[in-house]
Each structure stands twice: as C-alpha cells, then as structure tokens.
C-alpha cells in the first residue's frame, strides 16, 4: 500500500512531483503535500513516478515521450485529481499528452481523461478547492516570475497572487517584465548557453529593479536558472518556489544558497 496522508474523506489527489522537485528540491514536494492536506485532500505520491517526458518531447523524441506518458497515465488514472507543482510539467500532462496520442483510439481518451483532472498546484488550490486558509507569514517584499508554460498554456497568473495576498506581512512588488521568459527552455539553456545566459541576465535585471528581497515562481527550472544568475552576480535576493512560502516551510536555505548559515 502506498503512503496516503490528509483527510480520508477528501478528494483523492495524486501528486506528480516532477523530476526537478524530486531530484533538486524535495522541500517543494513536502510543501505541496502540506498545502493539499490543509486544503482537505487525501494525498498520495506514487512511488514509481519519474519524469513527465517533456525533455524528450521537446527534443523531438516522441517515441520516448509517449512511452513515458503511458506510464504516467497508468499511474495516475485512478485519482480524482493530479496536482503538479510546475506549470510546465502540468502543461505537458494537460496539453501535450492529448496531442501526442491524437487519433489513437485507446490512448487518446485516456490522455484526455488525465488532462481533465490535472492541475498546476496554485491553480488547483484556487480554482478547484477554493483554498482560502493560507496560514503563513512572510514579512518581506517578493516579486513573482510568471513562467511561460504556466502563463501561456494554462493561463496561470492570478492564482499564485491570490494565495500570496493571504500570507501575512507579504508585499508583492511586480516586475515590469514578470511575464518575460527567463531563458531556461529545458535543454535550450545548455545547448544555446550564451543566448540563454543573456536572456536570464535581463530577467534578473528586471527582478532587481523591483527591490524585492525574494523571487517566487511556480516552476523549479526557471527558478534554478534565475537563482543561478543572481548568485553568480553576488546578489542576496532569495529564490524560492511559491509553495514553500504558502506552506510556511522556508527555514531551509533558498535555491542555490548555502545549506545553513553556520556552515558557511
């Protein structure tokens, strides 16, 4: 039996943690679970999950991408909802799986079914379960980076802001270019590193214009890119996934910051 937490009579939610959260920043996974529990859900994190297949899909390797997609569909088919702490991976499940299986009599309906119940975390909290009870504190100003897939594939813009407004003490200072791409782009950031680096340079300049102490966002890929650039420039601006602040789980080091102050 897989581990299950939260309220037993709530909707059954499967968390698709995403490979980056799984590998790079477990804190986001824990924060996601905590938020879903608080929102009254019955939460599972299927142990066999790996990756949504987006790197393969975006590189033209449709054979691998569809094989991975079948695996994800099978794993999450039985849940009421699938919640993903990433706009771009949620977008893959929601928008691209149905595309991948277009005209496949068996898999297209399954992909459509999964698509209908898949949500990005903040989208799920605000639009589906109408979660209002954010009990978190953060007495500082933050700015928000709207990551491309979340914004343009899923229309996520107001949901994270609506949640953050309920964090006591928190002030949102919007960047003029909050919606601009950070230049991550999956494998693009390595393949065309020079260009990617210039794009993220403009992104962090916009962030610094806001005078915020922290950048939040819903996609770890973008956040790692932004944090990597800020830290290379010696900036003290912290970078975190929005779930960490919403779940009030932010005592550990921010992205790309040293593990703990005493260790430095």
């Amino acid at each position: 039996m897989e581990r299950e937490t939260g309220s037993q009579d709530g909707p059954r939610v499967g968390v698709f943690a995403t490979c980056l959260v799984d590998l790079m920043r477990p804190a986001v996974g824990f924060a996601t679970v905590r938020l879903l529990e608080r929102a009254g859900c019955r939460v599972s994190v299927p142990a066999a999950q790996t990756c949504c297949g987006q790197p393969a899909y975006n590189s033209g390797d449709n054979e691998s991408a569809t094989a991975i997609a079948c695996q994800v569909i099978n794993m999450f088919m039985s849940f009421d909802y699938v919640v993903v702490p990433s706009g771009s991976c949620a977008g893959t499940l929601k928008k691209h799986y149905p595309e991948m299986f277009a005209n496949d009599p068996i898999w297209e309906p399954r992909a459509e079914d999964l698509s209908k119940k898949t949500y990005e975390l903040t989208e799920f909290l605000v639009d589906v379960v109408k979660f209002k009870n954010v009990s978190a504190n953060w007495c500082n100003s933050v700015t928000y980076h709207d990551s491309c897939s979340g914004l343009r594939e899923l229309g996520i813009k107001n949901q994270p802001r609506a949640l953050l407004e309920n964090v006591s003490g928190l002030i949102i200072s919007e960047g003029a270019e909050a919606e601009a791409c950070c230049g991550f782009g999956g494998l693009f950031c390595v393949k065309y590193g020079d260009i990617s680096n210039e794009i993220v340079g403009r992104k962090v300049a916009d962030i610094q214009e806001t005078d915020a102490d922290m950048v939040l966002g819903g996609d770890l890929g973008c956040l790692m890119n932004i944090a990597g650039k800020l830290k290379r420039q010696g900036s003290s601006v912290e970078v975190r996934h929005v779930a960490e602040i919403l779940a009030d789980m932010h005592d550990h080091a921010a992205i790309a910051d040293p593990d703990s102050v005493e260790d430095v």
Partner: protein
Amino acid sequence: MDPQIRQFRGNARGAINNRNLQSALAKLSSGFPARRSQAAARLPEFEALRDEARAIKDHVLEHLDIYLERYEAEVMSAGGQVHWCADADAARAKITEICKAAGAKTVTKSKSMIGEEIAINGHLESKDITPVETDLGEYIIQLRDEPPSHIIAPAVHLTMDQVADTFMARHEGLDPTRALDEPRKLLEEARAQLRDKFIGADVGLTGANMLIAETGSNVLVTNEGNADLTYSLPKVHIVIASLEKIVPTLEDAATILRVLARSATGQEMSVYTTFCTGPRREADTDGPEEYHVVLLDNGRSKLIGTEFQAMLRCIRCGACLNHCPVYQTVGGHAYGWVYSGPMGAVLVPGLIGLEEASNLPNASTLCGKCESVCPMHIPLPRMLRSWRQKQFETNRSGSFARVALRVWAALARRPGLYRLAVGLGIAGLGAWGRRRGRFAWLPMAGGWTGGRDFPAPNGDTFIAQWHQGARGDASGAWLRRQGP
C-alpha cells in the same frame, strides 16, 4: 543572400558581443511590443479580428488553386500578366527578361522580402542593371551592403550614429561637416538622394502584402510612400509575390489590414496603403504601361497538407520577432538568412531544407510568446517541435546531447532503475555542493555554468524521503537528517 544558418551559434555569440546591435535591440524590444499591446487594447474587436483573419487565410489555403486562377484572370482582364515561377531561378530569369525587354538600366525597388529570398539585387547587378532600394531602411542597408535584419524594419540593427556615418561615407559631393544628428535630417538627405533615382528608373519592382483575387490588385503597405513612386513612375511595374499572399476579396484584405499594422508597429494603419491594379488605363494621368506579377512558389506548395500548412497564413507583420526573447538577444542577422525569429525558424527549414537550417528550430525556449501575439494564431512552438521531431527521426548520429537524452529517457521508463541511479547521483552531487549551495562549474554543463551558477540538490530525493515517512518541517531539519 546565400543562407548561412550553419554558423548560427558563432553569429549569435558575435551578436551578443556587438554593443551597437545590443543597444538597437534593446530599443526594439521595449518599443514594438509596448506599442502593439496599446494598439490591441484600443480596439475592442482586435481578438475577433484575429480569428477572422485566420479564418480567411485558412479558407484560401484550402482552395488555393481556385483563388490563384481567379486572381490571374482578373490581372489579365486589367491588362496585366502573371508569370508563374516554381523557384528562385525561374523568378530571377523572368525578372531579368522583363527588365531587358524594357531596356532597363536602373530598377527602383520597394518592400520585398521575396526580393531578398531570391537574391534579386545581386542577380540584376550581374546583368548590368542597377537596383535601387527606396525604402529608407532597405536603402541604408544597401549602402552598407548588408542583408535586412528584420522583415519589416530591415535596418533595425543599426543605431542612428551608424546610419549617419554611412551617409557621410557614401553620399558624395555634400558638405562633410553637415549635421546628421536627427532622424528627420537623415530622412531628408536620403529623400534628396533618391528623388532623381525615382525619376530615372526604367522599371519599378515591388513586393505585395496581399494579392486580391476578386480584383487582381496587389496591396502595398508602407510608411514612406516610396512604394507608390516605385509603382507609378517607371514605365514597367513588376510585382513579386509568393503565392500564399492571396486573399479572396477587398473586404478580406481590409480585415487583414486591421490586424497587420497594429501587430507590426502598433499603428492603426500604416501611413500609405496602396491598391495597384494593372497598367495605366487611357484616362489615367500616371501609372506604368506594363504590369507584371511574378508569382513565386519556391517550396511553399510543398507545405500544403503538412503540419506546417498554417505557416502559410503568415502576413509578415514581424510581431513574433519583436516579442521573441531569442530574437531580442541576437537580432536577425544571426539567423543567417532572410527570415528570422520564430517565423523564420519555422519557415526556413520548409523552404531550404531541415539539414541546412537545423539550428533554427532548436534555438528557441518554446516560451510561446510568439504564438500569443501572432495575429494569425500560427502555432509556432508546435511547429518548432514538429521540426525537432523530424530531425530526431532522420538524424541517427550520436551527438552527446542526444545520447544523454536517450539514456535519461530510457531510465525514466524504468522506475526501479531510475530510483537507484538518480538516488546515487543526487546524493553525490548534493554532498559535493551543499556547502556552497551551488556549483560554479559542472562537468559537461559549460553552457549553463559559463554565466550562471548551478544550484546544488538538497540531498536525498523527495520520493525516497516521502516513502521513508518524512514530512518535511518548517525548520528544514529533514534536509540535514536525511542528507547523505
């Protein structure tokens, strides 16, 4: 201009280090997008017009043969001629033939990306015919012997000082101490230089923003009025256009015009919108005696019926370039041929082959901004992915990135093995990087770490910790407890 797309990476690096270019691009990136969004916001029916415009072009592409034949019939009944050209060679030969027949020494030109696509200038020069660009931007880059860097703003890569220097160097017989420090002065000087050329030209060559089937007209949109002089002064007029430029009716043309300028420059309308139909009639006071249309295919009809058909809806507004983070970083020349930015990255592999253009579909973050602003709703990111897929299928060679990706994908399909492998990898990486929280350098990730640090992972994976019963708490104690 011969394609130089293989040099994309090197070109991009050069572009990033070119200060003048970067300041010109910064201006473009803040100017055009802001003006577009204001123009769109001022027009309540803008979104509805986009849908209509898309529907018009989709309809045409489904019935292209019918509309092309109708168009040809109308051009002929207005006294003009249509020359069907399958490729660039055929189009060049036809244009030269018409010029020779007219005994042309100089040809004024206006507004044609197709002219660039078939490299007509060099060809005419080789036949002792002098082409004179009359669009200010085109004129400037012709003086500098450079290709255009943007489909609607060909000299957008230059700063005003560079233009002034070019005029100083190339305009002979003028006071070398004259001031050229304002756009207006530059414009006046160019205008004075061009006036005689307009009057002396034997043939006028223009592109076309649209071809209208019901009237046989071509539509020209400019801000300088140069197209009108190119059309009306010389004895012979040649329109060079690709076949997907067709629209059924004047009404349809009006719909597309309403989204075109708004998307391109944020203007409600361009300053001049001209409808040219055939040669002068008896009662006309001006206009050409001959009217030719060189209708070019050059690979476009092959795209019909494929997943790239929607690319032929493109009206060349340039919005996708203006909003593209990659274009904003490297400018148009880096792309190595006439068409740049997202529309170029989709169209060029279709026109000249994926092998030659293999860089273009990959040099994109797939951020989706282009599709969101494209007045014709062209799904550019989806098509970039389709090119990548074709590339993956045909390219069996084992580049490093490709092998790494295959290994990753193979692991992702085997959860047990994946857990084992990533668990070990992450533990090692985490132990190495946890003290600083990041890496300044990582093997084989130079593309990233050249300009950025790479965040270190936080110890054990989430899935492993979760299934060991961890909950994560505010203090982050689990990180240290569970860490390697």
